[in-house]
């Protein structure tokens, strides 16, 4: 083959040397061509891997079957380009000169072999170039740093691409919409543990507009998720409040959070930070541990708040006063931000009620009728959570006829129109009224503010389950009137 190639060269005294030169150059050509193709192949593999990852992700997200063939195109194109750019003899000579430090011997020799007429030293030069090229040791491949870097990159991309193939086995992400059957809302509703939720101050007095009968045809699909999110945010703040309440110095801030006054909470936390050097080591440790626990509990609900809590906890455990002050101030700022982001208590209660109505309407309609408890549409409950417990909620009420005490009962709202049962319709039914659990007649607050609930932080600081438990066990302070204000005259009417 080399002789055939050499025959294309001009017939000269260089013929013999040219054959030898081409033989040497062919070796370099194969080496350089293979390297070049390999390099193109690496780049093609990178491109193909990235394409495959993109195709896999899109297919998984859209939920269609993968179409793998586009991923192979870059690799095939790169290999084709590498083969198309197979080096010539001159290119191989130049590359060999450069890599093997042949001092331009081969490049000059190739040029001399093609030149006519030959010079005085041409044959000598070509022979020198061939001899030097043959005596130069060299690896078959030149794996320089750039080449190795590309190889590593290609390997990483290929691994990622292979991993992306596993995406097809994962369930595709569900779209955010639901169909008209309202399955999403029905599925999500049971996951809301309302008994574990704490009602914000004033929530018990909210007129439950959501108590209106809700058509079951269409449920608000995002309501369950929204309620869950709102509850999570509130839970995070509650956890922080409990953590802060673990030390006396943090009590004001805890109270402010419970009252929903996040501006004050921020100020209190800043004050706590300013006075961090006044805290005892034991208090710092206690507060730090409580904050750490709160951060762990709130990590999913409010990540930013959890981070700030964790920073504050860490600073309390080992940092200087300046860092403690800074961390607590940061926590205060975050409390204000998280608080401003969270919905109002009214809205939360409204959403919960609405969600509850939906679940009741969809899943428990028949059961409600069978129990005959008259739960539907009642607004005389102490809380919606208690209402959810159904007839059992009424069992905790104490002696009837006592006003002002907490309790759970059923009743009617005269303001309700339509087919709601009237006040007289409740005759003959078991009506449970708030009781004065501590015994004795109820005492109307002297300032006439018995309808204003939530003024006492102690009320707001207890969650629903605690309240329900307290009602059932009669351990509720008399001033904690849990009957919604605008409903109390209904209750009172039974005793006049």
């Amino acid at each position: 083959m080399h002789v055939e190639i050499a025959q294309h060269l001009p017939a000269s005294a260089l013929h013999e040397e040219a054959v030898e030169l081409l033989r040497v150059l062919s070796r370099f050509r194969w080496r350089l061509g293979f390297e070049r193709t390999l390099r193109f192949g690496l780049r093609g593999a990178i491109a193909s891997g990235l394409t495959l990852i993109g195709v896999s992700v899109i297919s998984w997200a859209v939920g269609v079957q993968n179409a793998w063939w586009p991923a192979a195109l870059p690799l095939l194109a790169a290999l084709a380009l590498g083969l198309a750019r197979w080096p010539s003899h001159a290119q191989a000579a130049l590359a060999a000169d450069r890599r093997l430090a042949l001092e331009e011997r081969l490049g000059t020799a190739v040029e001399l072999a093609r030149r006519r007429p030959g010079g005085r030293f041409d044959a000598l030069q070509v022979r020198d170039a061939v001899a030097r090229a043959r005596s130069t040791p060299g690896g078959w491949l030149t794996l320089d740093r750039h080449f190795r870097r590309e190889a590593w990159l290609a390997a990483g991309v290929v691994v990622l691409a292979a991993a992306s193939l596993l995406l097809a086995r994962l369930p595709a992400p569900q779209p955010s919409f639901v169909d008209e059957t309202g399955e999403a809302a029905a599925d999500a509703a049971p996951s809301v543990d309302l008994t574990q939720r704490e009602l914000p101050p004033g929530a018990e007095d909210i007129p439950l507009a959501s108590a209106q009968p809700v058509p079951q045809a269409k449920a608000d699909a995002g309501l369950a998720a929204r309620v869950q999110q709102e509850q999570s945010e509130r839970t995070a703040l509650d956890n922080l409040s409990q953590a802060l309440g673990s030390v006396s110095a943090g009590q004001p801030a805890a109270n402010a959070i419970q009252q929903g006054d996040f501006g004050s909470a921020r100020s209190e936390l800043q004050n706590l930070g300013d006075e961090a050097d006044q805290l005892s080591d034991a208090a710092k440790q206690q507060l730090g541990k409580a904050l750490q626990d709160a951060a762990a509990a709130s990590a999913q609900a409010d990540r930013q708040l959890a981070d700030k809590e964790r920073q504050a906890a860490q600073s309390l455990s080992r940092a200087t006063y300046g860092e403690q002050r800074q961390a607590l101030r940061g926590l205060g700022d975050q409390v204000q931000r998280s608080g401003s982001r969270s919905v109002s208590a009214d809205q939360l209660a409204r959403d919960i009620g609405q969600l509850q109505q939906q679940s009741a309407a969809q899943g428990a309609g028949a059961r409600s009728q069978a129990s005959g408890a008259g739960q539907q549409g009642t607004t005389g409950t102490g809380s919606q959570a208690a209402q959810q417990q159904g007839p059992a909620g009424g069992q905790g009420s104490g002696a009837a006829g006592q006003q002002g005490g907490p309790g759970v009962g059923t009743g009617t709202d005269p303001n309700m129109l339509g087919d709601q049962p009237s006040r007289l319709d409740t005759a003959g039914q078991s009506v449970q009224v708030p009781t004065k659990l501590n015994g004795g007649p109820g005492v109307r607050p002297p300032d006439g503010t018995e309808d204003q609930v939530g003024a006492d932080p102690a009320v707001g600081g207890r969650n629903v389950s605690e309240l329900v438990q307290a009602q059932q066990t009669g351990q509720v302070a008399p001033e904690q009137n849990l009957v919604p204000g605008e409903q109390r005259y209904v209750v009172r009417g039974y005793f006049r």
Partner: protein
Amino acid sequence: MTQTSVSADGRAAAAQDIERLRRTVEALEREVARVIVGQELVIRGVTIALIAGGHVLLEGLPGLGKTLLVRTIARALHLQYSRIQFTPDLMPADILGTNLLLETSHGGRAFQFQPGPIFANLVLADEINRATPKTQSALLEAMQEQAVTIGTVGHPLPLPFFVLATQNPIELEGTYPLPEAELDRFFFKLNVGFPTRAELTAIVDRTTGPRSDPPAAVADGANVMELQELAREIPIATHVADYAVRLVLASHPELPEAAETARRNVRFGASPRAAQTMILASKIHAVLAGRVNVAFDDVRRVALPALRHRLILSYEAEAKGTTPDRVVAELLSAVPEQG
């Protein structure tokens, strides 16, 4: 005789020529080294210039052996040597010669050309920058054409013809900078540096002890001419020659190929003679390095003496203290080997 044997004979003859050139240069350098201590790069530069048929401008402080070097080379090459001490009152006729009105044997009178000291194989133009530009310019024709014209008659100079000029870089009083046209005619400009401690010790020992034998002649004018022709036949690849060309183009600030350093520091770039010089000198350097072809490294090694006197720096660059050597070094860094 077969084609193979002819080819083999040609290769053997070429190899012998190369070997002869190499041996001659080595012998010349060895003889010069018997007299001159150190200055290997200067000696190598002068040798390359002589084989290339070029003139050399030696720049250095007084007492560094510039004149001794030229005289030693003249003796080692068995060349006709003349020395011209350039002074401000030196006239062109003092160099080139003049027509004298002489009485003929027949009693008549006729002009007869009396050749000046430039009619020699090796001319030492000592302190060339002390002569006026008019006198300096008298060398222009001689250096380029190897001939002088007196009146209307041209007189060829003996071949080989070399001008080795010296100049003192620190004395400015009473000196005249060489015109650019004359500077460009010098093949190399070599800086003669101060010797090291060991070299200075050797110089002292050698010059204050018993006189040593004068250098032996290793070649003559004919041999030198033959070596000049031989050196021109050393092959150079196109891409290597292109590197030298691109170096020259990069020194021209007005050209698109100009390097950044040329745009900042150079007023006028190197002439085409610079490219010719680099390629020719590279060929000889390649042979002396044991190759039959020119490499990029050869071009780089001869670029400094070939370019430094051909770059005219801008006023700003001179004010900043930028030297041509630095600009050449930056050019070598800026211009890639593979264009």
